[in-house]
């Protein structure tokens, strides 16, 4: 909607509340060329709702802080342009649903930070050269860079039904941490074996390859195809390959 000066307005339906309850509130604010959803939220915070809670840092898609559900789609608020949304209806902005609500658009994502230390840490082989350094080919490095692009926005965790609907937080580490495990496992220097953990207490078996995680990843990481499926194959190779099984029995 435009007025005479060329400035236009749009309405945003933002979730306001905390763990004890809340409701959507409509805010109409001026919008200008190139604006992203986070800009609109900031304008609303500055002009109409000073105490609005919103988490962000970089406003450049690099830190993974500003995750939310925009018109029902899990996205980074700072990388969602208003001109990509229909503005005839209010734009709904809600917090991520898989995590406990703190306030308004901010959720308690601390579970993720407790999961990470459970993954076996990077364990390099002995250095290749006498000066304590390693030699690696660019091609080997390139293979894992995809996983290392992860900005820990936790949008993939938010959409994964194992967490979102089934709430298996205790048994399943979620797509973000499969990506993390893949980054370590396929690191050219790493020597640790994480397969037993994946199967036993990290629940890779719960993933039924729906690819919802891949579809929301703002970094375009092919989470399911490139990280989870190869990890599942490792589990199969190690545990269900008949020859290997025999080998384990005789050892």
């Amino acid at each position, binding site marked *: 909607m435009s007025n005479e000066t060329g400035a236009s307005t749009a309405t945003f339906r933002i979730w306001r509340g905390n763990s004890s309850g809340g409701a959507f509130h409509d805010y109409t604010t001026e919008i*200008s060329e190139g604006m992203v959803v986070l800009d609109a939220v900031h304008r609303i915070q*500055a002009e109409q709702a000073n105490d609005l809670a919103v988490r962000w840092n970089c*406003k450049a898609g690099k*830190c993974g802080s500003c995750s939310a559900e925009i018109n029902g789609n899990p996205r980074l608020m700072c*990388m969602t342009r208003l001109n990509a949304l229909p503005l005839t209806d209010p734009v709904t902005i809600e917090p991520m649903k898989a995590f406990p609500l703190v306030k308004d658009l*901010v959720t308690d994502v601390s579970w993720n930070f407790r999961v990470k230390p459970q993954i076996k840490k990077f364990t*390099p082989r002995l250095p290749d050269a006498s000066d304590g350094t390693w030699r690696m080919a660019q091609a080997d490095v390139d293979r894992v860079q995809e996983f290392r692009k992860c*900005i820990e926005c936790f949008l993939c965790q938010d959409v994964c039904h194992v967490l979102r609907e089934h709430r298996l937080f205790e048994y399943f580490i979620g797509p973000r941490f499969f990506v993390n495990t893949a980054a370590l496992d396929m690191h050219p220097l790493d020597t640790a074996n994480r397969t037993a953990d994946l199967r036993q207490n990290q629940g890779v078996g719960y993933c039924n390859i729906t690819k919802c995680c891949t579809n929301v990843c703002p970094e375009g990481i092919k989470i399911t195809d490139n990280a989870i499926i190869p990890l599942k194959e490792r589990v199969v190779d190690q545990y269900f390959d008949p020859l290997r099984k025999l080998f384990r029995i005789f050892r």
Partner: protein
Amino acid sequence: MAEYETHDYEVLVIGAGGAGLRAAIEASANQARVGVVTKSLLGKAHTVMAEGGIAAALSNVDERDNWRVHFADTMRGGQYLNNWRMAELHAKEAPDRVRELEAWGALFDRTKDGRILQRNFGGHRYPRLAHVGDRTGLEMIRTLQDYGIHAGMEVHMECTVITLLKDDGRIAGAFGYDRERGRFLLFRAKAVVLATGGIGRAYKITSNSWEYTGDGHALAYEAGASLMDMEFVQFHPTGMIWPPSVRGILVTEGVRGEGGVLKNSDGRRFMFDDIPENYRAQTADNEEEGWRYTQGDRDARRPPELLTRDHVARCILREVREGRGSPHGGVFLDIAWIKNRLPNGAEHIKRKLPSMYHQFKQLADIDITQEPMEIGPTTHYMMGGVRVDADSQMSDVPGLFAAGECGAGLHGANRLGGNSLSDLLVFGKRAGEYAARFAKNNGAASVDPQQIDAAAQRALEPFNRTGESPFQVQQDLQELMQNLAGIVRREEEMQHALIELRRLEERANRVAVAGNREYNGGWHTALDLRNLITVSEIITRAGIERKESRGAHFREDFPSKNDAVGRCNIIVRRDVSGEMQVIREPLAEMPAELKQIIEEMK
């Protein structure tokens, strides 16, 4: 004293960017009990945004490189105001710190023989920046974060420190609140490391995140430490300028390193028009040579687009002022042209600069492989900060250390790109080590209950008032600093800024916030405002005192260098009566062997 949740540490690190994490890792490795406090979540600090790389004379790409060349480059870039001892330590130790990151799991791009690849950057004589595409900061912070969580430190995420605590002159801890619930937290500590980053939010156009409100600078000042070089604010020449909502977001110098050129509205490469005397011998004087340099020709000299940031930013401003700017008030940065030179040029650009490609595509509907970008200067980095001892990083306040962007000394009047990430590693490690040592050698300090209760009470005042919104005051402050203490400065304007800052301070003391203490954006902004105003005043006063133009500090009323003030650092501290004191302090004499290096490298 009221009851507060209390934590006891030997070393408390404030900040979880590269410097804070490196300090915490080192202090833990030295058997200290370490706590880390950070305003945001772990892994989100500003360091995550760094793009171009980490400067270290590994000499993997050009064997002529070594610490002496890196030292000389850093000093030249800083216009010799740098603390020479820090520049020396930095140049010598950076390679080990980079190799250590690799041993902790960081994966850098490789040379053909499998070693860490290095790229060209402004002001560095040889290719020197270890990098991972254009997301080096992410690689660095994730490596430190993932190593750190197994190193034994305790992390308090989303907690903000609002005051430092002292006991009879020495540091005793810090007091703050958790952002989620708004509860106060008391940290008792024998040593404190400040690693809070920069001040960019004092300006309207900035590449910096919301966290950059100069907290560490202001906390240290209030605790009686000296700040140094605060007039030197780096304006990065290439920030996005269009559309308005992305104004300020950084366009990495890597674009120019890969062959990107700057042009005005006449299509002229204006950087050839003004090459400073002290760089003339190392700068290409024709387009052909500049191009060869970016493609790794070791005999070619660097194109003028890769001159130091202060100079490039001013040249851009000149073009705009003289009417040769781009439609939205910047100039053009063109990388698409390299398609004329390289087969598969478009693919090459996407591979070398993936996040830049993405950023322009997504935020500005521009395909940088096809059309030029519009860019202009953006507030980027604070060279000044807490004055520290070069070896230990301790400030004038016993037990208070500072590292990373909130510390001062390494960069002098202008920082070279890539020298910040290496700074974080080298001096983060040193700060952690010496803080642990200080904690071992000194008994427990006691905290002052009155000081703490007073800080808590003051922090809550905005809830008990009715008045203006903190966001409005913050915006007005940013506008003021942008206009009156920005890239080009003048005495009357800065004097005027001081008067206006007084007014803003009065307004800040009257702002009101609604709602309760739970994750309240307005309240957080109200508390950050005090720090922003303190650092703005310090920047302005230091800027008035330096009556010359040098590095990032450009005075229209004193456009050239002046040796009298040019041989001094400007120190700002609080005097006994609580007034802001501005002092010129002569530079320390450089040892003969370092002087000789500089002579040799001229």
